[in-house]
């Protein structure tokens, strides 16, 4: 539970976060707009494939594909995590040390920055997603129950992505070349999260692998629940899976962070 002191700290960090983000307002919205490009390309490609096969792709109609990728745009936006890039830079530039010297865990700054960025750029993302939905005549089988469960699932998905982002960011304690490790992580996420196509369209073995890794629980699971692609019972089980992955991520993060601090050589700090 957040105490009075924590609320005041977070209020101050949010104020500061707004001030920093407002200094970069143009680039902020440009980054958000770039995030549409990939889902729109896949959406157009899969719709073209479906048209060549009589208007269907497995269990998905063209409208279902539209619905999937519109939700993907929103969930991808919500689950965006970039700390693995920022953290390495902070260590190299020496700006991590001042944060470590304060009685506040550095992850708190990142939480505020992450949430603020998503809230502000949603102003650009939501209208574009609606326009895409209309253009591609997207279909959703979403019930109020799906919305409620999907909202929880989306927050859990974003939290898993954030925590695993910090696990991989912490690799920077050992090497100043985190990019290689992060690239591997991002490629795996690209294949197994549901960015390319709905996970149910993956070949059986790949689908099994996807469901055994955390990536599907960041993006594919909330997307399927929010578009009404699964019944509520199945959705609830998927949410339980998310809770498990979040717990694993937090445990892993604590271990890696504690070991990383011991390793930290305060490069240039």
């Amino acid at each position: 539970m957040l105490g009075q002191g924590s609320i005041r700290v977070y209020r101050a960090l949010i104020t500061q976060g707004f001030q920093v983000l407002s200094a970069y307002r143009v680039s902020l919205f440009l980054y958000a707009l770039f995030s549409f490009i990939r889902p729109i390309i896949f959406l157009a490609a899969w719709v073209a494939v479906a048209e060549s096969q009589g208007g269907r792709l497995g269990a998905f109609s063209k409208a279902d594909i539209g619905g999937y990728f519109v939700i993907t745009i929103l969930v991808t936006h919500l689950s965006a995590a970039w700390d693995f890039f920022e953290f390495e830079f902070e260590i190299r530039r020496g700006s991590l040390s001042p944060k470590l010297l304060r009685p506040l865990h550095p992850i708190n700054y990142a939480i505020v920055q992450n949430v603020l960025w998503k809230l502000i750029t949603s102003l650009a993302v939501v209208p574009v997603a609606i326009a895409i939905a209309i253009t591609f005549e997207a279909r959703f089988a979403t019930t109020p129950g799906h919305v409620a469960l999907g909202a929880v699932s989306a927050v859990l998905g974003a939290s898993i992505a954030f925590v695993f982002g910090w696990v991989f960011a912490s690799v920077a304690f050992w090497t100043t070349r985190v990019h290689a490790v992060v690239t591997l992580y991002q490629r795996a996420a690209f294949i197994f999260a549901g960015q390319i196509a709905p996970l149910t369209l993956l070949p059986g073995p790949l689908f099994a692998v996807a469901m055994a890794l955390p990536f599907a629980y960041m993006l594919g699971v909330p997307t399927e629940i929010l578009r009404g692609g699964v019944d509520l019972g199945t959705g609830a089980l998927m949410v339980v899976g998310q809770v498990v992955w979040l717990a694993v991520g937090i445990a892993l993060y604590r271990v890696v962070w504690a070991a990383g601090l011991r390793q930290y050589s305060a490069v240039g700090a």
Partner: protein
Amino acid sequence: MPDVVIDVRGLTKVYRVHERQEGLGATLRSVLRRTFKEVPAVTDATFRIDAGEVVGFLGPNGAGKTTTLKMLSGLLYPTAGEARVVGHVPWRREGDFLRAITLLMGNRTQLVWDIAAADSLRVLQEIYGIPEERYRATLGELTELLDLGPLLHKPVRNLSLGERMKVEFAAGLIHSPRVAFLDEPTLGLDVSMQSRIRRFVAEHNRRAGTTILLTSHYMDDVVALCKRVIVIHRGRLLYDGELGELAQRMAPYKVITVALRDGAGSAFLDDLGTVVSREEARVTLRVPREHTAERTARIVRELEGDLVDISVEDPPIEEVIDRVFQGAV
């Protein structure tokens, strides 16, 4: 008896560094088999600092000063040894410890670049849980001492180096730490700003009783602020004591400066010591410490009528330190 706020025993830090020879062959071999060497940065450092002391921590580049400060501020884990700062083991980084210390580095910023310093200070107020009244009082005092008024509401990126250092000090001291580690706080500043920062540190120490461990390559900083110095070289402590006694302990000679009428009798001085400089009628020579009295008496006696002035001093502190670092002692 004053409180011991920094207690260091056998503190040692060894870095493990990847080592590679030059050339393609060595590069290829290092891909398959990496070799490391151990580089001792600090070896068996032991010292204590009492509450309210201002101690100069001196050493050439790479001597181990910053590594020591980073261990004492909890940023680095030592390889061996113990340390207590305000009763805490620094590298456990407990909240009470972090609230009691600050580390200011002359070449690093802790302020957010794009916003006004006043906004960053407000965040620090909440992080350190400083009550509003105390925050205003401390900020008022820092503003008065550092003349911060016009600087607090400008984005940090628009401040000059000297101005930024002043607001860095404010950010580092806003929570009234009991211990301040200052690492090259006047680095890159002009002479006037160096002097202002020195006056501020001295005044802050006097008013708040903050214990200060200061590193600086500018001896003026050390002379102005520190009664006591700790000298470190190649990771080992060479001296820990009064600044005034450093020359006595580390320099085995004194400097005699003689002013002569028309330069007469100058050649006689060559036999009494090592002539360091000879400028018209003024000769400066080094004399072994134990012979100083006898040689001074001889100069006075022999040059009687030609002697205009004579002074006997310890060598300048810069020269003493330089001798220590050059391994001449």
